[in-house]
Protein backbone atom coordinates (compact mmCIF):
# COMPACT_ATOMS: atom_id res chain seq x y z
CA UNK A 1 0.00 0.00 0.00
CA UNK A 2 2.77 2.39 0.95
CA UNK A 3 4.55 1.51 -2.23
CA UNK A 4 1.49 2.31 -4.30
CA UNK A 5 1.24 5.68 -2.57
CA UNK A 6 4.90 6.35 -3.28
CA UNK A 7 4.48 5.45 -6.91
CA UNK A 8 1.47 7.74 -7.19
CA UNK A 9 3.53 10.40 -5.45
CA UNK A 10 6.22 10.11 -8.11
CA UNK A 11 3.54 10.55 -10.77
CA UNK A 12 2.08 13.65 -9.15
CA UNK A 13 5.54 15.09 -8.62
CA UNK A 14 6.50 14.57 -12.26
CA UNK A 15 3.32 16.12 -13.60
CA UNK A 16 3.66 19.02 -11.18
CA UNK A 17 7.26 19.59 -12.21
CA UNK A 18 6.28 19.57 -15.88
CA UNK A 19 3.52 22.11 -15.28
CA UNK A 20 5.84 24.29 -13.22
CA UNK A 21 8.71 24.20 -15.73
CA UNK A 22 6.40 25.12 -18.58
CA UNK A 23 5.08 28.10 -16.64
CA UNK A 24 8.45 29.24 -15.34
CA UNK A 25 10.26 29.07 -18.67
CA UNK A 26 7.20 30.28 -20.58
CA UNK A 27 7.49 27.46 -23.12
CA UNK A 28 5.18 28.08 -26.05
CA UNK A 29 2.00 25.95 -26.05
CA UNK A 30 2.77 24.69 -29.54
CA UNK A 31 6.12 23.33 -28.40
CA UNK A 32 5.22 21.79 -25.07
CA UNK A 33 1.81 22.38 -23.54
CA UNK A 34 1.51 22.00 -19.75
CA UNK A 35 -0.33 18.92 -18.43
CA UNK A 36 -3.36 21.05 -17.63
CA UNK A 37 -3.74 21.92 -21.32
CA UNK A 38 -3.35 18.25 -22.25
CA UNK A 39 -6.06 17.33 -19.75
CA UNK A 40 -8.31 20.04 -21.22
CA UNK A 41 -7.75 18.68 -24.72
CA UNK A 42 -8.55 15.21 -23.43
CA UNK A 43 -11.82 16.36 -21.85
CA UNK A 44 -12.71 18.34 -24.93
CA UNK A 45 -12.20 15.33 -27.17
CA UNK A 46 -14.69 13.37 -25.11
CA UNK A 47 -17.28 16.08 -24.61
CA UNK A 48 -17.62 17.61 -28.07
CA UNK A 49 -20.54 16.77 -30.30
CA UNK A 50 -20.71 13.11 -31.29
CA UNK A 51 -20.97 14.03 -34.96
CA UNK A 52 -17.83 16.12 -34.87
CA UNK A 53 -15.03 14.37 -36.74
CA UNK A 54 -12.57 14.58 -33.87
CA UNK A 55 -14.88 13.03 -31.27
CA UNK A 56 -12.34 10.75 -29.54
CA UNK A 57 -14.46 7.66 -28.71
CA UNK A 58 -15.19 6.85 -32.38
CA UNK A 59 -11.48 6.89 -33.16
CA UNK A 60 -10.62 4.91 -30.06
CA UNK A 61 -13.15 2.23 -30.90
CA UNK A 62 -11.94 2.14 -34.49
CA UNK A 63 -8.28 1.64 -33.56
CA UNK A 64 -9.06 -0.75 -30.75
CA UNK A 65 -11.31 -2.96 -32.88
CA UNK A 66 -8.66 -3.02 -35.62
CA UNK A 67 -6.03 -3.98 -33.08
CA UNK A 68 -8.06 -6.62 -31.29
CA UNK A 69 -9.44 -8.40 -34.36
CA UNK A 70 -6.04 -8.34 -36.02
CA UNK A 71 -4.45 -9.63 -32.86
CA UNK A 72 -6.91 -12.51 -32.56
CA UNK A 73 -6.54 -13.52 -36.20
CA UNK A 74 -2.76 -13.09 -36.22
CA UNK A 75 -2.32 -14.87 -32.92
CA UNK A 76 -4.48 -17.79 -33.94
CA UNK A 77 -2.72 -18.13 -37.28
CA UNK A 78 0.65 -17.93 -35.57
CA UNK A 79 -0.34 -20.63 -33.14
CA UNK A 80 -1.72 -22.93 -35.84
CA UNK A 81 1.19 -22.58 -38.21
CA UNK A 82 3.65 -22.77 -35.35
CA UNK A 83 2.07 -26.05 -34.24
CA UNK A 84 2.21 -27.42 -37.79
CA UNK A 85 5.83 -26.40 -38.26
CA UNK A 86 6.93 -27.91 -34.99
CA UNK A 87 5.09 -31.15 -35.74
CA UNK A 88 6.78 -31.39 -39.12
CA UNK A 89 10.39 -30.41 -38.41
CA UNK A 90 11.49 -30.80 -42.00
CA UNK A 91 9.24 -27.90 -43.00
CA UNK A 92 10.69 -25.83 -40.22
CA UNK A 93 14.22 -26.59 -41.30
CA UNK A 94 13.43 -25.72 -44.89
CA UNK A 95 11.39 -22.61 -44.19
CA UNK A 96 13.54 -21.30 -41.37
CA UNK A 97 15.62 -18.83 -43.44
CA UNK A 98 12.41 -17.27 -44.80
CA UNK A 99 10.87 -16.96 -41.36
CA UNK A 100 14.08 -15.38 -40.19
CA UNK A 101 14.17 -12.84 -43.01
CA UNK A 102 10.50 -11.99 -42.58
CA UNK A 103 10.87 -11.59 -38.90
CA UNK A 104 13.77 -9.22 -39.18
CA UNK A 105 11.99 -7.16 -41.84
CA UNK A 106 10.24 -4.19 -40.27
CA UNK A 107 6.80 -5.42 -41.24
CA UNK A 108 5.22 -2.01 -41.04
CA UNK A 109 7.07 -1.31 -44.30
CA UNK A 110 4.41 -3.54 -45.86
CA UNK A 111 1.75 -0.94 -45.07
CA UNK A 112 1.92 0.95 -48.39
CA UNK A 113 1.86 -2.33 -50.29
CA UNK A 114 -1.20 -3.52 -48.37
CA UNK A 115 -2.88 -0.22 -49.19
CA UNK A 116 -2.33 -0.88 -52.89
CA UNK A 117 -3.73 -4.38 -52.56
CA UNK A 118 -6.64 -3.81 -50.23
CA UNK A 119 -7.39 -0.10 -50.53
CA UNK A 120 -7.24 2.51 -47.79
CA UNK A 121 -10.11 0.95 -45.90
CA UNK A 122 -10.40 -1.18 -42.81
CA UNK A 123 -9.11 -4.35 -44.47
CA UNK A 124 -5.62 -3.08 -45.31
CA UNK A 125 -5.10 -1.88 -41.76
CA UNK A 126 -6.43 -5.14 -40.38
CA UNK A 127 -4.06 -7.05 -42.66
CA UNK A 128 -1.10 -5.08 -41.33
CA UNK A 129 -2.05 -5.86 -37.74
CA UNK A 130 -2.41 -9.55 -38.64
CA UNK A 131 1.03 -9.66 -40.28
CA UNK A 132 2.67 -7.85 -37.39
CA UNK A 133 1.04 -9.91 -34.63
CA UNK A 134 1.57 -13.20 -36.44
CA UNK A 135 5.33 -13.54 -36.03
CA UNK A 136 5.90 -13.21 -32.29
CA UNK A 137 3.23 -15.85 -31.64
CA UNK A 138 4.58 -18.10 -34.40
CA UNK A 139 8.14 -17.99 -33.14
CA UNK A 140 7.24 -18.39 -29.50
CA UNK A 141 4.90 -21.30 -30.26
CA UNK A 142 7.61 -23.06 -32.21
CA UNK A 143 10.22 -22.57 -29.53
CA UNK A 144 7.74 -23.51 -26.82
CA UNK A 145 6.57 -26.66 -28.54
CA UNK A 146 10.13 -27.66 -29.32
CA UNK A 147 11.30 -27.15 -25.78
CA UNK A 148 9.10 -29.89 -24.34
CA UNK A 149 11.21 -32.12 -22.16
CA UNK A 150 12.09 -35.27 -24.03
CA UNK A 151 11.37 -37.47 -20.98
CA UNK A 152 7.74 -36.40 -21.09
CA UNK A 153 7.43 -37.21 -24.76
CA UNK A 154 9.10 -40.55 -24.17
CA UNK A 155 6.66 -41.25 -21.38
CA UNK A 156 3.76 -40.58 -23.69
CA UNK A 157 5.29 -42.79 -26.32
CA UNK A 158 5.74 -45.60 -23.81
CA UNK A 159 2.03 -45.26 -23.00
CA UNK A 160 1.46 -45.61 -26.75
CA UNK A 161 -0.29 -42.28 -26.94
CA UNK A 162 -1.27 -41.03 -30.36
CA UNK A 163 0.48 -38.03 -31.84
CA UNK A 164 -2.58 -35.86 -31.18
CA UNK A 165 -2.73 -37.00 -27.57
CA UNK A 166 0.94 -36.20 -27.05
CA UNK A 167 0.38 -32.80 -28.57
CA UNK A 168 -2.74 -32.04 -26.57
CA UNK A 169 -1.65 -33.37 -23.20
CA UNK A 170 2.08 -32.71 -23.13
CA UNK A 171 3.46 -30.46 -25.79
CA UNK A 172 0.75 -27.83 -25.85
CA UNK A 173 0.55 -27.30 -22.08
CA UNK A 174 4.30 -27.06 -21.73
CA UNK A 175 4.41 -24.58 -24.60
CA UNK A 176 1.70 -22.37 -23.12
CA UNK A 177 4.02 -20.12 -21.06
CA UNK A 178 5.99 -19.38 -24.23
CA UNK A 179 2.86 -18.86 -26.26
CA UNK A 180 1.62 -16.34 -23.75
CA UNK A 181 4.88 -14.44 -23.96
CA UNK A 182 4.29 -14.25 -27.69
CA UNK A 183 0.69 -13.19 -27.19
CA UNK A 184 1.69 -10.42 -24.83
CA UNK A 185 4.18 -9.02 -27.31
CA UNK A 186 1.68 -9.33 -30.13
CA UNK A 187 -1.00 -7.64 -28.07
CA UNK A 188 1.21 -4.61 -27.59
CA UNK A 189 2.35 -4.63 -31.19
CA UNK A 190 -1.24 -4.81 -32.43
CA UNK A 191 -1.93 -1.24 -31.31
CA UNK A 192 1.38 -0.05 -32.73
CA UNK A 193 0.55 -1.65 -36.05
CA UNK A 194 -2.94 -0.19 -36.08
CA UNK A 195 -1.59 3.31 -35.44
CA UNK A 196 1.11 3.03 -38.09
CA UNK A 197 -1.40 1.65 -40.59
CA UNK A 198 -3.55 4.70 -39.92
CA UNK A 199 -0.53 6.94 -40.45
CA UNK A 200 -0.08 5.47 -43.90
CA UNK A 201 -3.65 5.40 -45.08
CA UNK A 202 -6.79 5.99 -43.12
CA UNK A 203 -9.69 8.31 -42.64
CA UNK A 204 -10.43 7.31 -39.06
CA UNK A 205 -8.64 6.06 -36.01
CA UNK A 206 -6.21 7.45 -33.46
CA UNK A 207 -3.28 7.36 -35.88
CA UNK A 208 -5.11 9.51 -38.40
CA UNK A 209 -6.26 11.87 -35.69
CA UNK A 210 -2.70 12.09 -34.40
CA UNK A 211 -1.32 12.98 -37.81
CA UNK A 212 -4.09 15.49 -38.43
CA UNK A 213 -3.50 17.21 -35.11
CA UNK A 214 0.23 17.38 -35.65
CA UNK A 215 -0.37 19.04 -39.02
CA UNK A 216 -2.63 21.63 -37.43
CA UNK A 217 -0.05 22.07 -34.66
CA UNK A 218 -2.41 21.08 -31.84
CA UNK A 219 0.36 19.77 -29.65
CA UNK A 220 -1.89 19.40 -26.64
CA UNK A 221 -4.23 17.26 -28.73
CA UNK A 222 -1.32 15.11 -29.92
CA UNK A 223 -0.21 14.54 -26.35
CA UNK A 224 -3.74 13.72 -25.23
CA UNK A 225 -3.92 10.98 -27.87
CA UNK A 226 -0.54 9.67 -26.80
CA UNK A 227 -1.99 9.44 -23.28
CA UNK A 228 -5.04 7.54 -24.56
CA UNK A 229 -2.85 5.13 -26.49
CA UNK A 230 -0.64 4.60 -23.46
CA UNK A 231 -3.67 3.82 -21.30
CA UNK A 232 -5.10 1.46 -23.92
CA UNK A 233 -1.91 -0.52 -24.21
CA UNK A 234 -1.35 -0.64 -20.47
CA UNK A 235 -4.88 -2.02 -20.06
CA UNK A 236 -4.23 -4.55 -22.80
CA UNK A 237 -0.91 -5.51 -21.23
CA UNK A 238 -2.51 -5.99 -17.83
CA UNK A 239 -5.37 -8.03 -19.30
CA UNK A 240 -2.96 -10.37 -21.03
CA UNK A 241 -0.75 -10.63 -17.94
CA UNK A 242 -3.84 -11.42 -15.87
CA UNK A 243 -4.96 -14.07 -18.35
CA UNK A 244 -1.46 -15.55 -18.31
CA UNK A 245 -1.49 -15.76 -14.55
CA UNK A 246 -4.91 -17.40 -14.48
CA UNK A 247 -4.34 -19.80 -17.33
CA UNK A 248 -0.78 -20.91 -16.76
CA UNK A 249 -0.78 -20.61 -12.99
CA UNK A 250 0.99 -23.94 -12.82
CA UNK A 251 4.06 -22.78 -14.72
CA UNK A 252 7.33 -22.06 -12.92
CA UNK A 253 6.61 -18.53 -11.71
Amino acid sequence: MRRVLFILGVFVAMVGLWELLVWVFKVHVLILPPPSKVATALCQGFTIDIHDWSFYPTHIVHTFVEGIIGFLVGGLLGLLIGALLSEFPLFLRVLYPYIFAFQALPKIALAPLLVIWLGIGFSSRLALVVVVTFFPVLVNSISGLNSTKSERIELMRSLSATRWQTFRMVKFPSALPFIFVGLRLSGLLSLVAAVVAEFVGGSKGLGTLLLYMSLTMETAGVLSIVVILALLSIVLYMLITYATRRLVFWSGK
Partner: protein
Amino acid sequence: VVKDICWRDTIIDISKRSFLSLAKDKAAFSLTILTLIMLLVTWESICRLLSIPVHLLPPPSLICQALYKGWTEPVLAREGYYIHTFYTLFEALFGFSIGSCFGIILGTMLSQMPTVNKLLYPYLIAFQATPKVALAPLFVIWFGFGLHSKVLLSLTLCFFPVLLNSIEGFNSVGEKEKELMASISATSWQTFRLVKVPTALPFIFAGLEVAIIYSIFGAIVGEFVSAKSGLGFLITQRSMTLDTSGMFAILIILAALASGLYLILTYIRRRMLFWSELERSSEAV
Protein backbone atom coordinates in the same frame (compact mmCIF):
# COMPACT_ATOMS: atom_id res chain seq x y z
CA VAL B 1 13.23 -18.99 -18.97
CA VAL B 2 10.02 -17.17 -19.68
CA LYS B 3 11.18 -14.13 -17.82
CA ASP B 4 14.37 -14.12 -19.78
CA ILE B 5 12.73 -14.15 -23.17
CA CYS B 6 10.05 -11.68 -22.32
CA TRP B 7 11.82 -8.71 -23.87
CA ARG B 8 13.43 -10.80 -26.50
CA ASP B 9 10.21 -10.32 -28.30
CA THR B 10 10.42 -9.68 -31.96
CA ILE B 11 13.22 -11.99 -32.63
CA ILE B 12 13.53 -15.41 -32.83
CA ASP B 13 13.97 -17.90 -30.22
CA ILE B 14 14.41 -20.51 -32.80
CA SER B 15 17.51 -18.60 -33.80
CA LYS B 16 19.03 -20.20 -30.75
CA ARG B 17 20.03 -22.69 -33.34
CA SER B 18 22.64 -20.56 -34.93
CA PHE B 19 22.25 -19.54 -38.50
CA LEU B 20 25.56 -21.16 -39.33
CA SER B 21 24.55 -24.53 -37.97
CA LEU B 22 21.51 -24.32 -40.20
CA ALA B 23 23.63 -23.62 -43.23
CA LYS B 24 25.55 -26.77 -42.33
CA ASP B 25 22.27 -28.66 -42.43
CA LYS B 26 22.93 -29.45 -46.08
CA ALA B 27 19.75 -31.34 -46.89
CA ALA B 28 17.48 -28.65 -45.51
CA PHE B 29 19.55 -25.91 -47.06
CA SER B 30 19.34 -27.34 -50.54
CA LEU B 31 15.59 -27.81 -50.06
CA THR B 32 15.36 -24.18 -49.00
CA ILE B 33 17.04 -23.07 -52.19
CA LEU B 34 14.85 -25.44 -54.17
CA THR B 35 11.62 -24.08 -52.67
CA LEU B 36 12.84 -20.57 -53.40
CA ILE B 37 13.44 -21.40 -57.04
CA MET B 38 10.11 -23.19 -57.36
CA LEU B 39 8.28 -20.33 -55.70
CA LEU B 40 9.89 -17.80 -58.01
CA VAL B 41 9.13 -19.86 -61.10
CA THR B 42 5.48 -20.38 -60.16
CA TRP B 43 5.10 -16.73 -59.26
CA GLU B 44 6.63 -15.62 -62.54
CA SER B 45 4.53 -18.00 -64.61
CA ILE B 46 1.29 -17.18 -62.79
CA CYS B 47 1.90 -13.48 -63.31
CA ARG B 48 2.57 -14.01 -67.00
CA LEU B 49 -0.10 -16.61 -67.76
CA LEU B 50 -2.94 -14.84 -65.97
CA SER B 51 -1.48 -11.48 -67.06
CA ILE B 52 -1.92 -9.98 -63.62
CA PRO B 53 -1.52 -6.19 -63.74
CA VAL B 54 2.04 -5.24 -62.84
CA HIS B 55 0.94 -2.74 -60.23
CA LEU B 56 -0.92 -5.46 -58.33
CA LEU B 57 1.67 -8.21 -58.32
CA PRO B 58 4.86 -7.72 -60.31
CA PRO B 59 6.67 -10.88 -61.44
CA PRO B 60 10.03 -11.56 -59.75
CA SER B 61 11.91 -10.61 -62.91
CA LEU B 62 10.56 -7.07 -62.72
CA ILE B 63 11.40 -6.87 -59.03
CA CYS B 64 14.96 -7.96 -59.75
CA GLN B 65 15.13 -5.35 -62.47
CA ALA B 66 13.96 -2.64 -60.08
CA LEU B 67 16.44 -3.86 -57.49
CA TYR B 68 19.27 -3.85 -59.97
CA LYS B 69 18.40 -0.50 -61.52
CA GLY B 70 18.44 1.34 -58.21
CA TRP B 71 21.97 0.20 -57.47
CA THR B 72 23.30 1.14 -60.90
CA GLU B 73 22.22 4.76 -60.55
CA PRO B 74 24.97 7.24 -59.62
CA VAL B 75 25.66 7.24 -55.90
CA LEU B 76 24.14 10.64 -55.25
CA ALA B 77 21.09 10.26 -57.52
CA ARG B 78 17.77 10.54 -55.71
CA GLU B 79 16.32 7.72 -57.80
CA GLY B 80 19.11 5.38 -56.68
CA TYR B 81 19.14 3.45 -53.45
CA TYR B 82 22.48 4.62 -52.07
CA ILE B 83 21.29 7.88 -50.53
CA HIS B 84 18.12 6.42 -49.10
CA THR B 85 19.77 3.34 -47.68
CA PHE B 86 22.43 5.51 -46.14
CA TYR B 87 19.83 7.77 -44.54
CA THR B 88 17.80 4.94 -43.06
CA LEU B 89 20.88 3.09 -41.87
CA PHE B 90 22.31 6.24 -40.35
CA GLU B 91 19.08 7.08 -38.53
CA ALA B 92 18.69 3.55 -37.26
CA LEU B 93 22.29 3.04 -36.14
CA PHE B 94 22.65 6.49 -34.61
CA GLY B 95 19.43 6.03 -32.66
CA PHE B 96 20.45 2.52 -31.72
CA SER B 97 23.87 3.48 -30.38
CA ILE B 98 22.70 6.43 -28.33
CA GLY B 99 19.52 4.74 -27.14
CA SER B 100 21.20 1.55 -26.06
CA CYS B 101 24.11 3.39 -24.41
CA PHE B 102 21.62 5.40 -22.38
CA GLY B 103 19.68 2.23 -21.66
CA ILE B 104 22.71 0.35 -20.39
CA ILE B 105 24.02 3.26 -18.31
CA LEU B 106 20.66 4.10 -16.76
CA GLY B 107 19.81 0.45 -16.24
CA THR B 108 23.10 -0.12 -14.45
CA MET B 109 22.53 2.89 -12.25
CA LEU B 110 18.93 2.02 -11.45
CA SER B 111 19.74 -1.57 -10.58
CA GLN B 112 22.31 -0.37 -8.04
CA MET B 113 19.62 1.72 -6.33
CA PRO B 114 16.87 -0.74 -5.39
CA THR B 115 14.53 1.83 -3.84
CA VAL B 116 14.55 4.19 -6.81
CA ASN B 117 14.23 1.19 -9.07
CA LYS B 118 11.14 -0.02 -7.22
CA LEU B 119 9.51 3.37 -7.51
CA LEU B 120 10.25 3.83 -11.18
CA TYR B 121 9.77 0.27 -12.41
CA PRO B 122 6.00 0.48 -12.96
CA TYR B 123 6.56 3.59 -15.08
CA LEU B 124 9.24 1.89 -17.09
CA ILE B 125 6.92 -1.03 -17.80
CA ALA B 126 4.17 1.42 -18.71
CA PHE B 127 6.48 3.26 -21.10
CA GLN B 128 7.65 0.00 -22.61
CA ALA B 129 4.01 -0.95 -23.18
CA THR B 130 3.09 2.40 -24.73
CA PRO B 131 3.16 2.55 -28.52
CA LYS B 132 6.03 4.97 -28.80
CA VAL B 133 5.51 5.38 -32.53
CA ALA B 134 2.64 7.66 -31.53
CA LEU B 135 5.34 10.16 -30.59
CA ALA B 136 6.50 10.39 -34.21
CA PRO B 137 4.28 13.38 -35.13
CA LEU B 138 5.31 15.11 -31.92
CA PHE B 139 8.99 14.68 -32.73
CA VAL B 140 8.31 16.22 -36.11
CA ILE B 141 6.79 19.27 -34.40
CA TRP B 142 9.81 19.51 -32.12
CA PHE B 143 12.67 18.68 -34.44
CA GLY B 144 11.40 19.27 -37.93
CA PHE B 145 11.37 17.08 -41.00
CA GLY B 146 15.08 16.28 -41.00
CA LEU B 147 17.18 13.52 -39.56
CA HIS B 148 16.73 14.52 -35.93
CA SER B 149 13.14 13.44 -35.54
CA LYS B 150 13.84 9.95 -36.91
CA VAL B 151 16.99 9.47 -34.90
CA LEU B 152 15.03 10.45 -31.82
CA LEU B 153 12.23 8.03 -32.62
CA SER B 154 14.55 5.06 -33.06
CA LEU B 155 16.46 6.18 -29.96
CA THR B 156 13.24 6.13 -27.93
CA LEU B 157 12.30 2.72 -29.30
CA CYS B 158 15.74 1.25 -28.60
CA PHE B 159 16.07 2.70 -25.14
CA PHE B 160 13.40 0.76 -23.25
CA PRO B 161 14.15 -2.87 -24.12
CA VAL B 162 17.83 -2.30 -23.35
CA LEU B 163 17.04 -0.48 -20.12
CA LEU B 164 14.61 -3.11 -18.87
CA ASN B 165 16.90 -5.94 -19.82
CA SER B 166 19.88 -4.34 -18.10
CA ILE B 167 17.87 -3.90 -14.91
CA GLU B 168 16.64 -7.48 -15.19
CA GLY B 169 20.17 -8.72 -15.82
CA PHE B 170 21.78 -6.92 -12.89
CA ASN B 171 18.97 -8.00 -10.62
CA SER B 172 19.40 -11.63 -11.57
CA VAL B 173 22.79 -11.88 -9.84
CA GLY B 174 22.48 -14.72 -7.36
CA GLU B 175 22.81 -14.27 -3.60
CA LYS B 176 25.44 -17.02 -3.44
CA GLU B 177 27.73 -15.23 -5.84
CA LYS B 178 27.36 -12.00 -3.90
CA GLU B 179 28.09 -13.78 -0.62
CA LEU B 180 31.13 -15.45 -2.10
CA MET B 181 32.51 -12.11 -3.20
CA ALA B 182 31.74 -10.63 0.21
CA SER B 183 33.46 -13.52 1.96
CA ILE B 184 36.68 -12.97 0.02
CA SER B 185 36.31 -9.29 0.94
CA ALA B 186 36.05 -8.07 -2.60
CA THR B 187 35.42 -4.38 -3.06
CA SER B 188 32.05 -3.43 -4.49
CA TRP B 189 33.78 -2.45 -7.71
CA GLN B 190 35.34 -5.88 -7.96
CA THR B 191 31.97 -7.54 -7.32
CA PHE B 192 30.47 -5.33 -9.98
CA ARG B 193 33.16 -6.04 -12.54
CA LEU B 194 33.70 -9.74 -11.89
CA VAL B 195 30.21 -10.94 -11.03
CA LYS B 196 27.48 -8.50 -11.89
CA VAL B 197 28.56 -7.45 -15.36
CA PRO B 198 29.12 -10.99 -16.62
CA THR B 199 25.73 -12.05 -15.25
CA ALA B 200 23.97 -9.10 -16.85
CA LEU B 201 25.65 -9.27 -20.25
CA PRO B 202 23.50 -12.04 -21.78
CA PHE B 203 20.38 -10.09 -20.79
CA ILE B 204 21.79 -6.87 -22.18
CA PHE B 205 22.58 -8.58 -25.45
CA ALA B 206 19.04 -9.94 -25.64
CA GLY B 207 17.85 -6.35 -25.24
CA LEU B 208 20.24 -5.13 -27.92
CA GLU B 209 18.97 -7.74 -30.34
CA VAL B 210 15.45 -6.44 -29.92
CA ALA B 211 16.65 -2.86 -30.10
CA ILE B 212 18.49 -3.26 -33.40
CA ILE B 213 15.27 -4.40 -35.06
CA TYR B 214 13.29 -1.62 -33.39
CA SER B 215 15.81 0.95 -34.58
CA ILE B 216 15.05 0.23 -38.23
CA PHE B 217 11.36 0.10 -37.39
CA GLY B 218 11.65 3.56 -35.82
CA ALA B 219 13.52 5.00 -38.77
CA ILE B 220 10.91 3.67 -41.21
CA VAL B 221 7.92 4.92 -39.22
CA GLY B 222 9.61 8.29 -38.83
CA GLU B 223 10.05 8.45 -42.58
CA PHE B 224 6.43 7.46 -43.14
CA VAL B 225 5.27 10.41 -41.07
CA SER B 226 7.45 12.95 -42.80
CA ALA B 227 10.71 12.79 -44.68
CA LYS B 228 12.67 13.89 -47.67
CA SER B 229 14.90 10.83 -47.99
CA GLY B 230 15.22 7.31 -46.68
CA LEU B 231 13.83 3.94 -47.64
CA GLY B 232 10.55 4.53 -45.80
CA PHE B 233 10.12 7.75 -47.75
CA LEU B 234 10.97 6.02 -51.02
CA ILE B 235 8.45 3.26 -50.37
CA THR B 236 5.60 5.72 -49.75
CA GLN B 237 6.63 7.74 -52.78
CA ARG B 238 6.59 4.64 -54.95
CA SER B 239 3.23 3.57 -53.58
CA MET B 240 1.80 6.87 -54.84
CA THR B 241 2.99 6.09 -58.36
CA LEU B 242 1.88 2.43 -58.03
CA ASP B 243 5.46 1.31 -58.64
CA THR B 244 4.87 -2.02 -56.92
CA SER B 245 7.99 -3.74 -58.19
CA GLY B 246 10.03 -0.86 -56.79
CA MET B 247 8.30 -1.32 -53.45
CA PHE B 248 9.12 -5.01 -53.40
CA ALA B 249 12.72 -4.15 -54.16
CA ILE B 250 12.83 -1.84 -51.12
CA LEU B 251 11.25 -4.51 -48.94
CA ILE B 252 14.01 -6.88 -49.98
CA ILE B 253 16.64 -4.29 -49.14
CA LEU B 254 15.02 -3.69 -45.77
CA ALA B 255 14.87 -7.40 -44.96
CA ALA B 256 18.52 -7.76 -45.93
CA LEU B 257 19.54 -4.74 -43.84
CA ALA B 258 17.63 -5.86 -40.78
CA SER B 259 18.76 -9.46 -40.87
CA GLY B 260 22.32 -8.35 -41.62
CA LEU B 261 22.43 -6.07 -38.61
CA TYR B 262 20.83 -8.75 -36.47
CA LEU B 263 23.33 -11.38 -37.59
CA ILE B 264 26.26 -9.07 -36.88
CA LEU B 265 24.95 -8.56 -33.38
CA THR B 266 24.45 -12.29 -32.77
CA TYR B 267 27.97 -12.87 -34.08
CA ILE B 268 29.37 -10.37 -31.58
CA ARG B 269 27.32 -11.97 -28.83
CA ARG B 270 28.65 -15.38 -29.67
CA ARG B 271 32.21 -14.14 -29.63
CA MET B 272 31.80 -12.22 -26.39
CA LEU B 273 29.58 -14.58 -24.44
CA PHE B 274 30.97 -17.95 -25.47
CA TRP B 275 31.27 -18.77 -21.76
CA SER B 276 27.69 -18.00 -20.85
CA GLU B 277 25.42 -20.84 -19.88
CA LEU B 278 22.54 -19.42 -21.85
CA GLU B 279 24.73 -19.46 -24.89
CA ARG B 280 25.93 -22.98 -24.26
CA SER B 281 22.49 -24.33 -23.59
CA SER B 282 21.31 -22.76 -26.80
CA GLU B 283 24.09 -24.47 -28.70
CA ALA B 284 22.76 -27.72 -27.38
CA VAL B 285 19.20 -27.14 -28.56
